[in-house]
């Protein structure tokens, strides 16, 4: 007769593995093992439980309060919107304006704007010379200025997000502390 494994005995003692009822009913050794397992489990679940003193509980409460206050200060420190970020965002925006206006001027001077007007007024003309038209358009575009303008736009948006994001986080932290 195969006796129950350790795991089966543990499970059976805890009320699982009821499929083993028939074997357990006929097997004195497994019955003994299960009884011993139950007795030990019963004793282990009733082990003495140490409790901290009420003084410690009060002390822990104070320590947590202090830690929360410190984390608030830390949050204020790290989330304060940096003045330098604001200045950098402003400078980036100014440069963006200069480059954007320069790009528009170059678009006009290079004939790209005229080319676009022509495209809308005489599409048939351009469809007759598609490759020449595309070449002319590319030549008329101030590509370097255009790329620089886009780069500056990205930088200005990122810096502005950092600045305003920090200000919002600070507001939320302040609200949390008030609650």
């Amino acid at each position, binding site marked *: 007769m195969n006796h129950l494994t350790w795991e089966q005995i543990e499970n059976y003692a805890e009320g699982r593995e009821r499929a083993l009822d028939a074997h357990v009913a006929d097997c004195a050794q497994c019955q003994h093992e299960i009884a011993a397992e139950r007795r030990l489990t019963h004793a282990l679940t009733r*082990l003495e439980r*140490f*409790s*901290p003193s009420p003084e410690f*509980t009060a002390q822990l409460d104070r320590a*947590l309060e202090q830690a929360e206050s410190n984390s608030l200060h830390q949050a204020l420190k790290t989330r304060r919107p940096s003045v330098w970020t604001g200045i950098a965002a402003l400078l980036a925006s100014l440069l963006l304006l200069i480059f954007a206006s320069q790009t528009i001027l170059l678009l006009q001077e290079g004939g790209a704007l005229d080319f676009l007007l022509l495209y809308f007024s005489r599409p048939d003309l351009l469809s007759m010379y598609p490759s020449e038209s595309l070449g002319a358009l590319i030549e008329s575009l101030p590509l370097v200025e255009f790329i620089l303008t886009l780069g500056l736009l990205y930088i200005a948006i990122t810096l502005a997000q950092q600045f305003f994001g920090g200000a919002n986080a600070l507001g939320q932290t302040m609200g949390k502390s008030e609650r």
Partner: protein
Amino acid sequence: MILRGGMQTPESDEALAARYLRGDTQAFRELATRYTTPIYNLARRLTRDPMEAENITQETMLRALNALPRVSLDRPLRPWFFKIAVNLCRQWAERKRPQVFSEFQETEEAGVEMIPDSAPSPLEQLEEAELQAHVQRQVDRLPPVDQTVIVLRYVEGLSYEQIAEAMKLPLNTVRTRLRRAKLKLRAALEEGEV
């Protein structure tokens, strides 16, 4: 507390943590209240020093408070709290009693009187109390790792998987440890060693 079907059921640990992260500082106090005694109990058992147990409990709570924003609330927090406490106990043991946490130490065992299964009579109650005291002594004599496994399993009701997570041990090691510890305890009970 949440009202469900007219009965009050305690809010889950994860719900409390989420509430704390939304700005309700009281929610963490509730978590701390929930875990202070279990963690103190574990630390007290392992250090056998009330002062050290208090220090470890307080440090556990402070670390939990600071780390909570970085913890995934998709998984149960219970093993996570014990994990912090077990780590601190381990560090304490390394400072005070080198290697005590990693070695399976054999300790002296003493005999015990045999006990009946159940017992409502005064004599049986006395025997039951003696059994309980004996089991307590035998558990105290187990190596700290095995004591931790026993306490987490039978006092705190953690699953094997949760114990493995809390103690950073492979699941099979937890099974083996628990089995070995229980065999020792059973042998002590059945053979009447004190």
